[in-house]
């Protein structure tokens, strides 16, 4: 192996890179520290710790989470702390704009919009979170079974899914209303009857892909029971995607609630939700645009936060992106 020993400097002078002889006096023997040699320099992180660490680094996602937490706190406490009731009408302040007295102004019957906004948030957020959560869990279980076992079960389930997909959701909502009465629970139940289809299809596809992976085949060859394979190998691998999917499903459920309220199938007045506030606001668009503007602002920022959180979670759970930031 030939090594260049000399370098010609721009000035023309030739300088040796490595001295011809190194003085052994320059070095000391430190020996081997057998105890430290094998120790792990960084704390080992579980999958969730690692995901959380990377999620925290994702600024938009973290801001989204703080904003969402703020909205939840406001939805719980703002109506309690305000001196106005969400049903109290004040004829003198009809369509009043934002002021120090009524922070977000009043609607067409003089009700305080700030209080109504957070009463509405209670309904919208409850429906959004519960419907999305139930749908995600039910869909994941059914989709997982279809994807893992396949065959006749899968065939029958997918046909059921096709049929359910075609039933008009309004009919289902009205029928649920007949059975359990009007209210928040009606909306949640109605959304859950067909809402699980999306997450079922998604989970089925993922499980179908995973069960053909080599490590599942290896586990099978070793004689591991199906249940253990699902719990130990398949679920941890799709967990990230399921959580992300859940986050993305909440906006869908809030939209659905808003739509049902918009066409008059939501909860009964004087209760309100963001959908009802938007509907009332749109009627007053030319007279008092502030009502729909504020409603749109809160709906949009909530959706934005959830989307950001969803995106952040997807990146945090994706092991291929580990160490890229």
């Amino acid at each position, binding site marked *: 192996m030939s090594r260049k020993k000399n370098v010609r400097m721009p000035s023309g002078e030739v300088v040796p890179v490595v001295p011809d002889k190194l003085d052994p006096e320059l070095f000391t023997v430190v020996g081997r520290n057998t105890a430290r040699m094998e120790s792990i320099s960084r704390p080992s992180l579980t999958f969730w710790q690692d995901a959380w660490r990377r999620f925290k680094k994702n600024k938009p996602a973290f801001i989204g989470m703080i904003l969402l937490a703020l909205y939840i706190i406001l939805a719980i406490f703002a109506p309690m702390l305000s001196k106005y009731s969400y049903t109290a009408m004040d004829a003198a302040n009809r369509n009043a704009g934002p002021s120090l007295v009524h922070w977000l102004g009043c609607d067409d019957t003089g009700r305080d919009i700030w209080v109504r906004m957070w009463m509405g948030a209670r309904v919208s957020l409850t429906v959004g979170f519960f419907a999305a959560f139930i749908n995600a869990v039910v869909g994941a279980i059914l989709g997982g079974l279809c994807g893992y076992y396949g065959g006749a079960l899968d065939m029958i389930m997918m046909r059921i899914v096709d049929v359910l997909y075609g039933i008009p959701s309004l009919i289902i909502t*009205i029928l649920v209303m007949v059975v359990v009465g009007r209210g928040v629970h009606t909306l949640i139940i109605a959304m859950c009857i067909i809402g699980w289809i999306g997450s079922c299809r998604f989970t089925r596809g993922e499980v179908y892909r995973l069960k053909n992976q080599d490590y599942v085949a290896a586990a099978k060859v070793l004689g591991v029971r199906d249940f253990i394979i699902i719990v130990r190998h398949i679920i941890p691998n799709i967990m990230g995607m399921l959580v992300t999917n859940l986050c993305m499903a909440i906006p869908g459920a809030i939209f659905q609630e808003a739509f049902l309220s918009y066409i008059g199938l939501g909860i009964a007045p004087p209760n309100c939700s963001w959908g009802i506030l938007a509907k009332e606001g749109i009627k007053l668009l030319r007279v008092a645009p502030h009502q729909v503007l504020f409603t749109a602002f809160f709906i949009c920022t909530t959706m934005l936060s959830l989307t950001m959180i969803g995106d952040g979670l997807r990146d945090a759970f994706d092991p291929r992106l580990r160490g890229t930031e």
Partner: protein
Amino acid sequence: MGKYIVKRVIAAVITLLVLITVVFFLVRLMPGEPFTSEKLNPIVKENMIKYYGFDKPLIVQYFQYLGNLLHGNLGYSMKFTNKTVNYIIGSTFPYSADLGLRALAIALAFGLLLGILAALNRGNKLDVFCVILAIIGTSIPDFIMGAFLQLVFGIKLKWLPVAQYTDFKHTILPSLSLAFYTMASVSRTMRASMLEVVQQDYIKTARAKGLSNLRITWKHQIRNAIMPVITIMGPTVAAVLTGTFVIESMYAVPGMGKYYVDSTNNNDYSMILGMTVFYGAFLIFCNLLVDILYGVVDPRVRVGK
């Protein structure tokens, strides 16, 4: 391929049949009756009940309906008693489809373009702009989007008309309102998929072969990345083309959308069933088309080989 399509069509017919059966009996569980809302003379009402066959056992009515359906006859509407369901769908669907096609064209053209541009310029200003646009698009409910476009371009700026559906000028706002959400989700999906594809080995191979960047992007990256977009397009096309209640009622478009809500509110059984059959068949057709398109775009998943 032919065998596969025949199999799918048979499965579709069975699915439709089950769907019709379920909806046929479900609508009759809804509270109220079709003829209660009108101030009807009892004798007239009795005649109408006889005319529509409500005095017969339910099972007879069911098979009668199926028999009519085989002849392509969806029956008479129970609310607009002088019109057939075929006529109502036939006269309103063209408007919905027209609006839907315009919206789809906008959504696909701009959605794909934005998604591709964002992915190719990952991390710089253009990418951030596209991502923000996509997030805003998926964050705003359609009725708020529609109301704002009306307020800004129709009422404040007075550039475009806010209602009716006659000439090109009238179609711009409703198509934009309808397109925005789809455009945003197409661009998001396309961007994510492009970024996924660019890490694949075949892109490295193409680069190693010395192909130009344009050729790699066009022939290798886009063609592979478009698959997830095709997947989401199936249900989207069906939903957008068969009319949307909110946008159509907001802009006074005489499309199908309002009948989804009206027929349910009026207990117009034959109209509900007709809409369900039409939408169901359309959806199944779109999904079949998507599966065939898969094979065209990606020869690896070509079916029946």
